[in-house]
């Protein structure tokens, strides 16, 4: 019978074309508004590394004390001393330190002008921890960390700009006057939000061009181009004093495989703080945190409030469209009370009438979804009017959004048809046939 209902539903689209067009437009505009804002919300609120998000943690140690910390919360990054101490402790399966750098380079073709390039100075575990995919070569290992090698990994996009997309592994690249050896070219990898950098940035700015070896960057006194947060009188003079200051700027990440590993690591952070208290570095009780990716993004309030608000507004608009659709469906269905009476007289049960009209609503929903899809594609170009450019660029139509648009339109229209279809199924055949 389902095929028969579809046949009747499609035929019904042609009946009362004005009424049908109104419903299709209401659903189309409603679903398009929802999908456009959802595409933004999805981009900023999704889990950027779902397969490992519960194993990756940001450790936090209160190195500033209760008078200067962030409303009771430890700072979101490490100072150099604590960062290096924790690296040496080797208490996690993996640990990465990250800071942002801004350099410049001259592409290899003859007539090029210098271009600025941004990237991250990272330790070797960065690549396996975050499952960075490689096009050519690989990252480096801990031994090269210790040897302070001049290794660099380029992103595929930067490799395209500098080496024309060729396999550049083994080649040298000069950045801000220093030579680096390319050991790997990462495939396109730009988690959204860029979870490993949301303390320094909003997580949606331009993607990096390279990852260079952190110890090498430190040796070269490569400035931190990201966030740097200090407390009290800033009295350091020169690079070495900066490294010993209370300024936090090194973003730590640890990989812990199980919940018990995480609990053990938290205890380690506490004992480290106690140790520092005893050593006279900290004048306060331990105040530590260990947040996984999801908690960290939530704590950092990465999702821009306007994306949430616009999604709510769009969903409300869709709801209003659906309320209108309920009325239009009711009018459309009840105009056919005579036909319903005939069908009931000829043996249709109430369930069959109900099913027929729900399928008909689904056909209207499908048409509304198709229009909504078209409007979503067109509307994507207008996202920049509502959101900042770095957020707007994240909104895009992919296969999952196409599917969601159609499913949302059909499901919502079918839901809107529950009452009109129920009313249709309640038509008393005798009254209809008598009145004819």
């Amino acid at each position, binding site marked *: 019978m389902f095929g028969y209902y579809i046949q009747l539903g499609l035929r019904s689209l042609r009946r009362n074309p004005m009424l049908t067009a109104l419903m299709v437009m209401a659903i189309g505009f409603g679903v398009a508004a929802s999908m456009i804002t959802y595409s933004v919300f999805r981009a900023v609120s999704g889990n950027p590394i779902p397969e490992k998000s519960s194993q990756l943690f940001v450790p936090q140690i209160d190195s500033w004390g209760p008078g200067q910390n962030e409303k009771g919360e430890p700072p979101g990054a490490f100072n150099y001393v604590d960062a290096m101490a924790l690296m040496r402790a080797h208490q996690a399966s993996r640990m990465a330190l990250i800071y942002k750098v801004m350099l410049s380079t001259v592409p290899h073709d003859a007539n090029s002008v210098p271009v600025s390039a941004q990237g991250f100075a990272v330790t070797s575990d960065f690549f396996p921890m975050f499952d960075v995919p490689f096009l050519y070569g690989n990252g480096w290992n801990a031994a090269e960390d210790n040897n302070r090698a001049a290794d660099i990994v380029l992103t595929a996009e930067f490799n395209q700009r500098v080496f024309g997309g060729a396999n550049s592994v083994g080649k040298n690249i000069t950045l801000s006057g220093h030579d680096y050896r390319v050991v790997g070219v990462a495939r396109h990898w730009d988690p959204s939000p860029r979870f490993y950098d949301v303390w320094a940035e909003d997580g949606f700015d331009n993607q990096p061009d390279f990852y260079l070896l952190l110890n090498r960057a430190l040796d070269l006194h490569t400035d931190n181009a990201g966030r740097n947060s200090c407390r009290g009188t800033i009295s350091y003079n020169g690079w070495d004093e900066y490294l010993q200051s209370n300024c936090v700027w090194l973003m730590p990440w640890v990989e812990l495989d199980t919940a018990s590993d995480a609990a053990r690591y938290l205890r380690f952070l506490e004992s480290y703080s106690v140790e520092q208290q005893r050593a006279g570095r900290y004048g306060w009780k331990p105040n530590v945190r260990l947040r996984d990716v999801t908690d960290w993004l939530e704590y950092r309030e990465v999702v821009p409030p306007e994306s949430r608000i616009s999604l709510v507004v769009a969903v409300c608009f869709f709801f209003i469209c659906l309320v209108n659709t309920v009325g239009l469906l009711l009018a459309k269905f009840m105009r056919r009370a005579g036909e319903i009476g005939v069908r009931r*007289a000829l*043996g249709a049960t109430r369930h069959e009438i109900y099913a027929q009209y729900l399928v008909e609503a689904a056909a209207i929903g499908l048409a509304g979804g198709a229009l909504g899809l078209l409007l979503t594609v067109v509307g994507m170009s207008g996202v920049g009017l509502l959101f900042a450019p770095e957020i707007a660029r994240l909104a895009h139509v992919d296969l999952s959004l196409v599917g969601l648009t159609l499913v949302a339109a059909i499901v919502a229209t079918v839901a809107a048809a529950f009452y009109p279809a129920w009313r249709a199924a309640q038509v008393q*055949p005798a009254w209809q046939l*008598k009145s004819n």
Partner: protein
Amino acid sequence: MLKMTHLSKVYRTEVVETYALRDFNIDVKEGEFVAVTGPSGSGKTTFLTIAGLLETFTGGEYHLDGVEVSHLDDNARSKIRNEKIGFIFQAFNLIPDLNVFDNVEVPLRYRGMKAPERKERIMGALERVGLASRAKHYPAELSGGQQQRVAIARALAGSPRLLLADEPTGNLDTQMARGVLELLEEIHREGATIVMVTHDPELAARAQRNVHIIDGQVVDLAEDPRFHTAYVAAAGQVRG
């Protein structure tokens, strides 16, 4: 085939109760052709809709093909309507945006019949009413008489045991009405039970038996002194 005993149908509002049928008794045997007559508002159509399980009744008993139907749920009543009863309405009640073939197909769809068998039955029914060549036409493209023939084909396609006809010629001119009536008589000769509601004494006279309803009750015109004079006059008109 159809037996109603002390059946009543009451329409209730907050202030008034209206008896459409009261102590209504009728027994239609299998293979009979019964005409139900009576003035407007007498309860003829209410009787027909109850007989066709399109409406419930308030009291009494109704046995259809040996089954007491008062306690049947919607699914069971729909199944009986679909399999045992064929309806022919005064207003034809064809579905305007389905063509002739698809209109005749409607009851067969609800029976869950396979496509080849449906097609065979539909074309058989349309040939029988002389409209096989119009299978792809829409109701609006047919005359009133042709539309009623399609309605009869739709009623016949499911091979019902009982045909219920409500003023089947009421919307037709004399010639078309005669054609439809001849068709009903032919169907009856082939064994179908037909109950036909009509105002038309000439039409009623073609049935095997007449049942007259007045004020929601079956009356015997010949025996009831209240109607005897009118009955004799009407009978004389028909003979004349």
